[in-house]
């Protein structure tokens, strides 16, 4: 039951909105916290799935944004020099032309991470959990 306390706070209240470039609505974004008591190297993330209104977002349409940079999901396992400070929210950016309709949406984040100090020779604890909540899309 260790490390379970934080998952229910993963998706934050703030920052859920459509994104636009030069008038083209390119998609939408939302913010998440790292669901643990301390920060983590991004390479410790072993699962990060976003599901919106019951439909899983294709990882190829997803960007993970932190420390002033934007990463492809496929890059995450290699990011062992990027540190996620616990008070910094990460932004998930989704490419979806036209964005989402205003109003409430069901957001689900499935998250798992390796706790890098908990084991020897591969036997690390992997903390995993999910957070589901309704969030209103800001107009």
């Amino acid at each position, binding site marked *: *039951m*260790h*490390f*379970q*306390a*934080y998952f229910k*706070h993963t998706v934050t209240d703030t920052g859920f909105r459509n994104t636009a470039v030069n008038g083209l609505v390119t998609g939408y974004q939302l913010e998440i*916290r790292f669901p643990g*008591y*301390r*920060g983590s*190297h991004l*390479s*410790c993330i072993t699962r990060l799935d976003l599901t919106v209104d019951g439909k899983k977002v294709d990882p190829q349409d997803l960007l993970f944004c932190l420390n002033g940079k934007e990463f492809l999901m496929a890059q995450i*396992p*290699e990011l*062992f020099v990027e*540190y996620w*400070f*616990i*008070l910094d929210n990460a932004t998930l950016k989704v490419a979806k032309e036209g964005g989402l309709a205003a109003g409430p949406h069901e957001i689900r984040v499935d998250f798992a991470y*390796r*706790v*890098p*100090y*908990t*084991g*020897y*020779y*591969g036997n*690390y604890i992997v903390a995993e959990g999910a957070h589901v909540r309704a969030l209103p899309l800001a107009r």
Partner: protein
Amino acid sequence: MKDSNIKLGISLYSLTIDYFLRRYDLERCLATAQELGAEGIEIVAAMMVPGYPWPTAAWCEDFQKLLQKYRLAPVSYSAYVDMGLRSDRDLNEPEIVQFTKNDLEIASRMGFQVVRTQHAISPATLEKMVPYAAKLDVWLGVELHVPHTIHVPVWREYFGLFDKYGSDHIGIVPDFGVFQEYPHLPWFHQAAELGMRQKTLDVLCPLQRRGVTEEEALKQVPDLTDAERPIAHELFKDFHPAALEDIGPMVKHSRYMHGKFYHIDENFHDACIPYDRILPLVRDHGFKGFIASEYEGHQFDESIDATEQLKRHLTMEKRILGLA
């Protein structure tokens, strides 16, 4: 507080939930420590140091000024051995040495003379750190944590190093969780939240207390659910307390201890970790240094007021030690 060889501090880790939910920033955590009457603090760098593992020298200086503002001693900088930070392989020894040197340097810049590290550092690597710790005048303590006792092979090796080099620059940070006998109240709260039925606990808990094996005990619960199975397993796996006789050898090589706790009741009593027997032994063996109250109930039930728990823990310690 009366003059004493034992000084009482708190680990800011105790305030995890308030910090994680952005209710308290670092300064508010320090102010809380002062209000509670703590003489010093432990900080978990990976949690509360902005820019970690590369904080600026300016931030480290500002941190020292904050400690002075709240009249708190810098007691311990908590470091990790993040051996599994890469996806492709474990860190090797030269990398662990470099990361640990980095932690010793940050700690020193922040004013700490004690750095807590973890057993995964390995005896061979700890031995390599002795000269550097001496040059920086830092004491690098390895935390003795559940499920270890001082009798497991790796700890026999650590004690061999303490005998060889003395304990001026390396040593042991005992975590009182090793003396935990039973599950604590927040554990029961989380177990219920995860689907453990009270009727199952009513059967299993007395059997755990009597020392019955997991296999035998589970025969008494034919309708154990899938949700209950891992929790029942923890109940029988996690609570095997170290002997109180181990406190003497710990004290000999320690200058810092973790006063781990999960719940102190309104009568200032810990029902799971026998503080009333631990603390007099720590004192009578001549311990000189800080004990930091380390509240960890927040990992199980975030609705409990951590500051109130710290207040009760400090009060309990003072009463037992005659410092009140």
